[in-house]
């Protein structure tokens, strides 16, 4: 075989994308490690401080609070969204007429901007002039504090029955729960579409065979649908988790003043890093450290779920 001449062509084709990705993805990620080791603000570079930012993080109650709030968000949003979207998709999969109509209706929140949606929902949750309390009033329930309520949802629930819960069992504040509702509502359409695509991939013959064998609907769901849909479940689980960890807009627009309120119960990690980096303290290096912790958490979860995926695939 003759030796080929070096072909510069392919490199020219990938060059534009490569330059952008190097300069605006790889360099920033490397830079964020460096920045987190220095005193670095909008005004310029400072001294090398090593791991000081990270040890400061460990003793920063605001950081732990925002981490806890973020976990609350994920723990509530992901399973609820998963179950609801699977129900929506199963219902849709059982009809013929109006299928695409309903599908489109469910999908509208997905394509609308979080900013506009947050503005609307903030007014919905307004204590005096909001739709939420108005509708509760129609069914005879006393108005709630929603975004202004810092008490935990379990505390409120048990209070209703006259039981006082210890503070650590209170759960997310009602304010954070309002954010949870909006986040679920916004992502439901997308997850439903994904599930529907998954359900449509299951061949009808399985169900027909099960019908002949006399298996009930619930048995069919547990033995056929759920196992065969597991790759989709894995995808929905992973995407929803990653997206929910990065919630920012709804916190920025719906809560406060001050943002993250009441009593810091809606402060999430991405808002906290934004506030540290671009708020009053302008501490870009501390914000970078927070960002990297977030990255580490998401990476660890992704790897963990990848392990899980191997177990659930059929």
């Amino acid at each position, binding site marked *: 075989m003759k030796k080929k001449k070096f072909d510069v062509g392919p490199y020219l084709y990938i060059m534009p994308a490569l330059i952008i990705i190097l300069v605006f993805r790889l360099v920033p990620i490397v830079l964020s490690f460096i920045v987190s080791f220095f005193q670095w603000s909008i005004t310029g570079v400072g001294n090398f401080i090593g791991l000081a930012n990270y040890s400061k993080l460990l003793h920063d109650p605001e950081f732990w609070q925002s981490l806890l709030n973020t976990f609350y968000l994920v723990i509530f949003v992901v399973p609820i969204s998963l179950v609801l979207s699977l129900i929506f998709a199963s219902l849709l999969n059982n009809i013929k007429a109006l299928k695409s109509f309903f599908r489109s209706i469910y999908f509208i929140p997905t394509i609308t901007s979080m900013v506009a*949606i947050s503005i609307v929902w903030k007014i919905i949750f307004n204590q005096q002039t909001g739709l939420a309390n108005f509708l509760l009033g129609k069914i005879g329930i006393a108005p709630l504090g929603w975004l202004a309520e810092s008490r935990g949802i379990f505390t409120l629930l048990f209070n209703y029955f006259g039981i006082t819960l210890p503070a650590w069992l209170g759960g997310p504040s009602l304010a954070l729960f309002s954010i949870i509702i909006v986040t679920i509502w916004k992502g439901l359409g997308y997850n439903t579409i994904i599930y529907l695509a998954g359900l449509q991939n299951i061949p009808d013959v399985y169900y027909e065979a099960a019908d002949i064998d006399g298996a009930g609907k619930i048995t069919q769901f547990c033995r056929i649908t759920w196992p065969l849909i597991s790759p989709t479940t894995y995808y929905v689980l992973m995407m929803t988790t990653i997206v929910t960890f990065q919630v*920012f807009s709804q916190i920025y627009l719906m809560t406060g003043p001050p943002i993250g309120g009441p009593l810091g119960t809606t402060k999430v990690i991405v808002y906290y890093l934004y506030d540290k980096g671009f708020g009053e303290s302008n501490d870009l290096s501390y914000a970078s450290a927070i960002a990297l912790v977030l990255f580490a958490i998401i990476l660890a979860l992704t790897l963990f779920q990848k392990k899980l995926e191997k177990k659930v695939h059929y």
Partner: protein
Amino acid sequence: MRTRTPVIYFLLLLCGISMVIPFVWMVTTAVKSPLEVNKGHVGFIPAEEYPVYSDDSGEYRVKIIKTEGDSSYVNVLNKDGQIIRSFFKIPSREIGKERKIKFHMENFLIAFQKVPFGRYFLNTIFVSATVVLGVIITGSLAAYAFARMRFRGRELIFYLFISMMMVPQPVYLIPSYIVLDNLGWLDTYQALIVPWIANIFTIFLLRQQFKTIPQELFDAAAIDGCSRWGILWKIVLPLSRSVISTAAIFGFIGSWNSFMWPLVMIDNPKLRVLQVGLSYFSQEASSQTTLLMAASTFSILPLLVLFLIAQKQIIASFASSGLKG
């Protein structure tokens, strides 16, 4: 089976209502009278309540000025709202109440003019369109190389790209700010456009598509003397229209709705994109519910119209993002 169908439709309708109720309420509140909203009128019907007084000649709308004992002094208004009798004394109990539906369409105009929304729209359209164009160009070129050419480091570079895709946006927000600052690009259109004109997901999507094109087509074209560049334009791209439009849809919606990035990178009010402008507006007009709802409505509208026109394609695009490539 058949007997269950109505139940399914009922449940679907229930779910559907819960998904659209916020939008319906947004629009109906946007056309309400600001006074009614401030009075605590919450429902879905943009109705107004006002006092009326009737005598032999008909029913008139009145404006109560003051009440003394059993009688009130009122201004009597005609249909156009002009005062036809002022300081008219009538017994209070004869003042009735009437509800009338009225759409205050002017709220949209007031909101639109309160801050330069026109400018925000133009900025957003310019940024989104440029980003989409860039994403398609860089994506097609790179995907073509990854799918159809052999070169040293191909796998390495491809995996570098894929691993970059795993990094969430908030993580590179701060260092990107520093990079853009060093380039002198903060507060410029470049800051909104250039970092986004290469999209790894698009490259991945297009690469999958380009791989499916049969090798025979390439061979035949090469025999006919078609160059690599020519094959891309005459064969590869025309055969990949639907995937390219998928990528364009993702790019456009993503760019149109992006918020945190422009919020951080842009300070100059003239360069504000729609989402950032809307966010500032929501702080300035925080107590003016009708205007906030009106602004939210017209901010959502362009994408909603796009969605209604191309819903099949858009939903199929999103659905395909979940299938394993």
